[in-house]
């Protein structure tokens, strides 16, 4: 037979235990959220900052690749941040926690030459692949999908500057809004 005061004591200690668990949960949340006030870096060439997490809100400024921002909060696709103490909201996709790499451009002509040499050595691959049972699969695809490096080089030669692209898009937007 359990005494009623013992039950009351049990409930009391359970509540204390629960409160302790809640206490530690609350402690843990800021630990995970130590991301707050962390420095992050802009990774897109253009990163608009808005007054609210909505593209229809006021555009406060536009940041550029490599700029450091301080993250205050995250919400859906957005980070609330400050840049030079100016607060705003920015798309997460434009931001990462490491500085961006330098613009990386492979010399396409050199690459084309190297690949041309590599393509002239199919026999080594064919032999090894055949030994590993890959040849049948490769041949099936090889007959289905051919290479066209000339077309690729033509596509790569159509160089468009970021400035020209910007101007073209902006002009389109202006003309759209002009009656």
């Amino acid at each position: 037979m359990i005494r009623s005061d013992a039950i009351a004591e049990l409930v009391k200690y359970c509540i204390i235990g629960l409160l302790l668990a809640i206490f530690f949960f609350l402690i843990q949340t800021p630990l995970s959220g130590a991301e707050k006030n962390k420095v992050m870096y802009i990774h897109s060439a253009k990163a608009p900052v808005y007054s609210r997490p909505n593209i229809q809100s006021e555009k406060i400024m536009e940041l550029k690749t490599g700029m450091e921002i301080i993250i205050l909060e995250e919400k859906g696709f957005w980070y609330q941040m400050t840049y030079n103490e100016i607060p705003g909201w920015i798309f997460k996709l434009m931001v990462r926690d490491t500085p961006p790499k330098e613009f990386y451009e492979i010399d396409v002509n050199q690459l084309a030459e190297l690949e041309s040499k590599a393509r002239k050595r199919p026999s080594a691959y064919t032999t090894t692949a055949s030994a590993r049972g890959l040849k049948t699969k490769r041949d099936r695809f090889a007959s289905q999908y051919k290479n066209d490096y000339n077309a690729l080089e033509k596509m790569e030669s159509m160089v468009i500057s970021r400035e020209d692209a910007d101007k073209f898009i902006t002009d389109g937007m202006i003309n759209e809004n002009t009656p």
Partner: protein
Amino acid sequence: MKTLHKIVLTVFVCSLIWIGLADAGEARKRISSMANDYSNLSDIEAEIRFGRDLSARILGNYKLLKDEKKNKYIGLIGTGLSQYAGRPELKFYFGILETDEINAFAAPGGYVFITTGALVQMENEAQLAAVLGHEIAHVVKRHVVRKLNIKGDQGSATGGFASMIGGATGSFREAFEHSLLEAEEILFKKGYGIEEEIEADQFGILLSSAAGYAPDALRNFLIKCKRFESGNPKTDSDHPPHEIRIQKMNITLQAEGLLNTNNAKIRKRFYDYIQK
């Protein structure tokens, strides 16, 4: 009372363990994300070289449209969008494929293709921007790169890939060719997973919206394409059912307050360049 103290102690200890496990999980997640970053210079070089060869296969399978004006138009819109994309180390290239298929492709390293069949179905520049944004997303999020573990160092199946092209050993060349076959299967047969497509849809919406285009353009284009979805082998059968993607896009547009915006659609210029 000793029993009660034990209960309290148990709850206390359980709480501590739970917190410990949560933090350890977080730490594991961070370590794992560092290991799968694919962002050192040799990884990027491998990505570009792999994408270049895959693009040559795409262009071997479809013809590049010989219309400089149209290709330049696509390039201007795509290059403009890519500036919002968060991969400043990549140069993006855009081309039109001459085929009635309604489709678009992206190869790692920044190569983006759209078909004449897809362009014919579009109604304005915002829809073009949204589709290009969707394909840019596959590149930015490294969907093929991650799936096939394309890395420049020795830590993957295509390990040493960056130095392979110029002086390839048989085994590197074999791994490279095998990965190309798998990438072709993803692009031309199997398609990406539905999570990757939905991620690319969301990214495409945000990217084209940030550039000033109407956020609902991708959804509207997909609604139009939905009628070609079944019974026509020349449609974009590699992607998950349009209905699911449209539903997910509606949720995103609603949640982000992107419905009924005044953003641009740009119909006339699109017709001048593409439909004339």
